[in-house]
């Protein structure tokens, strides 16, 4: 029988509980200070409101965080996801673009290449970027931060080459649907994130990949001796991370209806890393928490939205964000919690 006490203890030691608590606190703050924050209304069959807005805007970060979770769980990091967002967006935008044609009397923009081809190309290039990172880390044995730094810097150059240094505007209407469309009353991006999350969860928990990732991140030598091909595990997590970044790139470019090699996804790798860490996955590798990372991304977006809606002067809003992130990180730190809240009882040693 599970006693009341032990449920409490399990909640206290559970990572996701702390992450959810933080999200709840941010939302609670809005309940008190932001009028109409929780108001959701239906316009033209679509749901509108701050909460829906947060879900929609957080989509790219959530996608990046999902991919990044696996990478961080192996003890690595991928700094290049922001650049991959730019590459993916640039490629799709330049292939879709928009050509003005006359259909009868109506002027209409059509896609230069078929849209599915543009999307496929963007995703393939993102996959290739991930494979590149994965090979550098797993085969060339370059430290992850250095290995992915290469593409982080070079990738922006690639994106600008694709767009010829211009900001490409996307006129083709159908492409706008990816980032701004609605399905069943909800933003289409929510479904994209949901699908990727589902795939990630299936890979993590219904195949052996999740176990291998945690094992390699926990103890690489022991994993090798247990017969796990850790090089391939590492290669695959970077590949998946690149793929997620590619999808995020499509959403970002569709959202702003343009591709800017310089600024698309700028610093988004840092938000993704932060989301993963807030979500409870340790930077040293090992256990990972997919849902935690997604909630982490939501916290970051809620925070941004809150700061804007409360009307914090723009010059200090980064400071406010920093303070909140600082508090969140403290709450996630086990040794901090131990010092402040006392030693959790569930940590007893078992002896033979």
């Amino acid at each position, binding site marked *: 029988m599970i006693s009341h006490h032990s449920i409490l203890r399990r909640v206290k030691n559970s990572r996701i509980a702390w992450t959810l608590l933080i999200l709840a606190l941010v939302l609670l703050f809005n309940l008190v200070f932001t009028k109409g924050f929780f108001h959701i209304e239906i316009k033209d069959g679509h749901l509108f409101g701050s909460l829906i807005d947060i879900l929609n805007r957080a989509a790219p970060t959530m996608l990046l965080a999902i991919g990044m979770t696996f990478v961080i769980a192996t003890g690595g990091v991928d700094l290049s996801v922001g650049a991959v967002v730019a590459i993916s967006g640039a490629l799709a935008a330049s292939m879709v673009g928009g050509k003005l044609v006359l259909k009868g009397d109506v002027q209409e923009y059509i896609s230069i290449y078929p849209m599915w081809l543009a999307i496929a190309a963007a995703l393939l290039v993102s996959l290739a970027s991930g494979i590149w990172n994965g090979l550098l880390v797993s085969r060339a044995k370059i430290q992850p931060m250095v290995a992915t730094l290469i593409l982080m810097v070079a990738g922006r150059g690639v994106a600008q080459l694709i767009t010829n240094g211009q900001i490409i505007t996307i006129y083709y209407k159908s492409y706008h649907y990816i980032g701004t469309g609605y399905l069943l009353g909800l933003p289409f991006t929510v479904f994209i994130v949901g699908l990727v999350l589902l795939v990630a969860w299936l890979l993590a928990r219904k195949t052996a990949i999740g*176990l291998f990732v945690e094992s390699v991140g*926990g103890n690489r030598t022991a994993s090798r*001796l247990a017969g796990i091909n850790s090089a391939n595990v590492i290669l695959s997590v970077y590949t998946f991370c690149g793929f997620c970044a590619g999808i995020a790139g499509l959403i970002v470019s569709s959202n702003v209806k343009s591709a800017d090699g310089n600024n698309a996804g700028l610093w988004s790798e840092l938000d993704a890393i932060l989301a993963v860490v807030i979500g409870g996955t340790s930077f040293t590798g090992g256990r990972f928490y997919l849902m935690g990372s997604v909630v982490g991304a939501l916290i970051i977006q809620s925070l941004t939205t809150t700061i804007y809606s409360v009307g914090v002067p723009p010059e200090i809003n980064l400071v406010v964000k920093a303070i909140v992130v600082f508090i969140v990180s403290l709450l996630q730190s086990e040794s901090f919690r131990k010092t402040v809240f006392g030693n959790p009882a569930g940590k007893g040693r078992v002896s033979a």
Partner: protein
Amino acid sequence: MKPLLEMKGICKTFPGVKALSNVNFRLYRGEVHGLMGENGAGKSTLIKVLTGVYKLDEGEILLDGIRVEATSPQHAQMMGISTVYQEINLCPNLTVAENIFIGREPMKHGRIDWKEMNKRAELVLGRLNIYIDVTRLLSTYSIAVQQMVAIARAVDISAKVLILDEPTSSLDAAETEQLFKVMRKLKSEGYAIIFVTHFLDQVYEISDRITILRNGELVGEYKTESLPKVELIAKMIGKELAELDYLPGEKKSACGGKERRLLLSARGVGRRGTIAPFDLDIYEGEILGLAGLLGSGRTETARLLFGADRADEGEVELEGKKMSSMTPRSAIGHRIAFCPEDRKEEGIIGDLTVRENIILALQARKGWFRYIGRKEQEEIADKFIKALNISTPGSEQLVKNLSGGNQQKVILARWLATDPKILILDEPTRGIDIGAKAEIQKIILSLCKAGLGILFISSEMDEVLRCSHRIAVLRDRVKIAELTGDEMDEQVIMHTIARGHTS
């Protein structure tokens, strides 16, 4: 002549362990003094007490007749006691000269005088007859040279007592000889050197006297020339020669039956600088023990057979099939299992649960997509928790929260779950309590009865004798003998190790 260094009645207790009890140690000027003992004998504790890493509980240390007590290795160094460790405590990314003078660089006009520093570094090394380019990075030189740089640094900081802790363990024969030259030079200049090693020949080659410790107690201090090797071994492992003449009459036969099937046969397998080429056969239903002192190449042998390290010569046949190259994955594919010596670094994955640790190797063999369902995982875990009597609140406990013995059982379970034909056990009973030890030995014997071929490594000779049907003896990284039947007794093994071959 009065000793330069005298340690009297040294006692040191750690929670639950008496690491040193009433140990005396004397060191004279101009001598090399071998400090010998098996694992856990207290050698490193004694050195750490001397160099101020640990505070002594009782006893006193006299240096030049004056009572001293070092509070830190830096403090000991200031008093003239320097240590050079096996893993070199220098910075590979600095130059040789920088390493020698780090923290005490010669200055000129408030800046480092590089010219002077390099000149003095060459001088310091020249005293040891080492002539190298001191402006190159330390990492560009071999371990042997790095070690000598460390010695040069220690000597230059006016050491009187130089402690060399396993300095030769990663050196080849020529490099060792080079190091010995340096040691002899220092000795002739009046330095006193404490030499800690596992290599018998080396102690006899270089040391003047030997102090032996066992289980934290002093066995005795001897002149090297008047202590036969076999007696040294006997004293290290704690058996008097007379006592060894008595033998338990019990003899074992292979439990697999008459028709023994050859599972693994290694021919001329070796790896440079690790273990000399050896031949080894493992049969079905038989336990092959590896005997030898610490550092004799037992672990290295096991690692080559599993492919944990790559052999650079020789070949392995598995059930008559030639293997091109062994990797852990191919070994596992051929149903070989390996419990490594270093449980924590190479065995368990502490942050994962007991269940996950147990199914890991099985899942790794099945691959990424033939996932073992959660329910089946739990069944496997529960089966082994029960079979091996693993003491845990449940299969969802994190492995790092278990005791050493139970962690060992979890690793054993991980391999048994893969249904192996060959099981390589490197020190499966190290550092676990008596009860768990007996249990693991029982498990090993019953696995052998079930037909597994087992390679069994243990530092405890008793244990090897009790469990094995055949024993391969190693010394100084060479396989020197294989003993069966009547030859399998402690005295024969010790004489074999002492002589370096069978009679």
